[in-house]
């Protein structure tokens, strides 16, 4: 069998793909966080809970109402988005003028409450959600077997992330968004309904997390803890990429997933900490993050 640095290529590629899958989730979640922070000035600690809720909604849809995976891909992000809009309208909008700390504390509290509710009803052990029939099995690439579902996750996440980037950077709607992020008062003085955009931005950001949850349900176990396990890494990704940069979040998310995957191959003990080591190094060299602008 072929080897690189004494590691079988099969194992190396396997971890690389797994890293890309993890990176896809990092990218989707940190993208939502970046968009929300830019527009609302809120560090959304409830993001992990929204991701977890997305996975649970998919599971509940299938178990209670027989709504399959494909419908869940569309319906669950909508449902999570609506939950987000309700949260924005009833709670977050009172905090925009205040220090970041208030938004962070409120969303952190929300995350604990949402997690607590699911834990109370479903326990912490995790529920199975099977891969849809169309995506089971693997493709033989010659040098490795590529599980179809993993490839699917990476492709969907890439498409969604790049579409989001395109809308924000290249369209008229995106111009409103960029303008409202940079100078909300003036943008409203030009006649743009900024409060509405803020509301929809939060809805969209958490809908991305919800979509991440649906994609994650067949890949990992559906558990109330899946969000808080992920969100800490995602925050590190956001810090490394630089708060508020769209492309930065996407690229950083994917590459840190890969770095994590490769660390698992070469020095498995460090795989859980490597992201934070990278964070420390980046903060020492570029405090605003790799893609962030210094103020």
């Amino acid at each position: 069998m072929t080897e690189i640095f004494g590691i079988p290529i099969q194992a190396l590629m396997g971890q690389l793909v797994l890293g890309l899958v993890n990176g896809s989730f990092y990218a989707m979640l940190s993208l939502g966080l970046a968009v929300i922070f830019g527009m609302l000035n809120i560090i959304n600690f409830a993001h992990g809970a929204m991701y977890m809720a997305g996975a649970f909604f998919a599971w509940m849809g299938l178990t209670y109402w027989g709504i399959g995976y494909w419908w869940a891909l569309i319906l669950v992000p909508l449902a999570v988005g609506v939950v987000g809009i309700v949260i924005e309208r009833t709670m977050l909008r009172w905090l925009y003028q205040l220090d970041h700390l208030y938004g962070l504390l409120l969303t952190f509290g929300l995350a604990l409450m949402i997690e607590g509710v699911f834990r109370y009803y479903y326990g912490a052990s995790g529920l199975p959600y099977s891969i849809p029939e169309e995506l089971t099995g693997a493709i033989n690439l010659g040098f490795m077997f590529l599980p179809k579902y993993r490839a699917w996750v990476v492709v969907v996440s890439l498409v969604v992330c790049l579409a989001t980037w395109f809308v924000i950077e290249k369209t008229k709607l995106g111009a409103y968004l960029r303008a409202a992020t940079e100078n909300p008062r003036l943008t409203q003085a030009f006649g743009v309904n900024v409060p509405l955009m803020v509301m929809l931005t939060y809805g969209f950001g958490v809908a991305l997390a919800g979509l991440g949850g649906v994609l994650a349900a067949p890949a990992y176990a559906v558990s109330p803890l899946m969000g808080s396990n992920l969100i800490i890494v995602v925050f590190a990704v956001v810090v490394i990429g630089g708060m508020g940069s769209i492309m930065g979040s996407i690229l950083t998310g994917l590459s840190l997933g890969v770095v994590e995957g490769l660390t698992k191959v070469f020095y498995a003990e460090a795989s859980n900490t490597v992201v934070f080591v990278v964070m420390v190094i980046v903060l020492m060299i570029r405090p605003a993050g790799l893609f962030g602008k210094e103020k």
Partner: protein
Amino acid sequence: MSMPTEYLKISGLHAFYGESHVLHGMNIVVNRGECVTLLGRNGAGRTTTLRAVLGLTGRRTGSITVNGEEVIGMATHKITRLGIGYCPEERGIYSSLSCEENLLLPPQVGSGGMSLDEIYTMFPNLAERRHSQGTRLSGGEQQMLAMARVLRTGAQLLLLDEISEGLAPVIVQRLAQIILHLKEKGFTILLVEQNFRFAAPLADRMYVVEHGQVAAEIHQHELEEKRGFLQEVLGV
């Protein structure tokens, strides 16, 4: 319904930034098609008056009507949609938008706005730099862009704040021509100006603002006889 000749009417307006009370009962009328200038020292409350019209200050009391409609309790974007174009003192060019994106940003608020072609004929520099990042433009170009931006929207009432500030004399002259041209086209203009020489020939009427109130109203034909008074108040 006949259109009121008072296009903008501010009566008994008080405005606050947090705890500080900036406007103390402003009374201003701008008639349809008129160009009115607010003169006064820095901090007298002229910029705040423009901002208060759009609801960009803190709390405000009193009355502001635009085209007969009361706007004191209205959301900012709804006030603008009554047909107002705003050119802020700091120009407000977005760095995350290109020159042309800046130009196309404000939504239409009325009919009869200039087309992109007309604007590029009026401001050829902007056409050349349409793909540059907004804040990479020179100070003069940014001011032109801020002006051009409100002409596209079909706004009939223009609130222009210190548009001649910090610009080369050639560009100031050019701006004066543009204002005259806009007056001919029937725009209603409320101008806040520090530069008396620039503002005096353009304005039909002037208000002298002091301590958040109107201290005097001067018509164009009274300019000569009141020159001494103005020099005293404005230090020009």
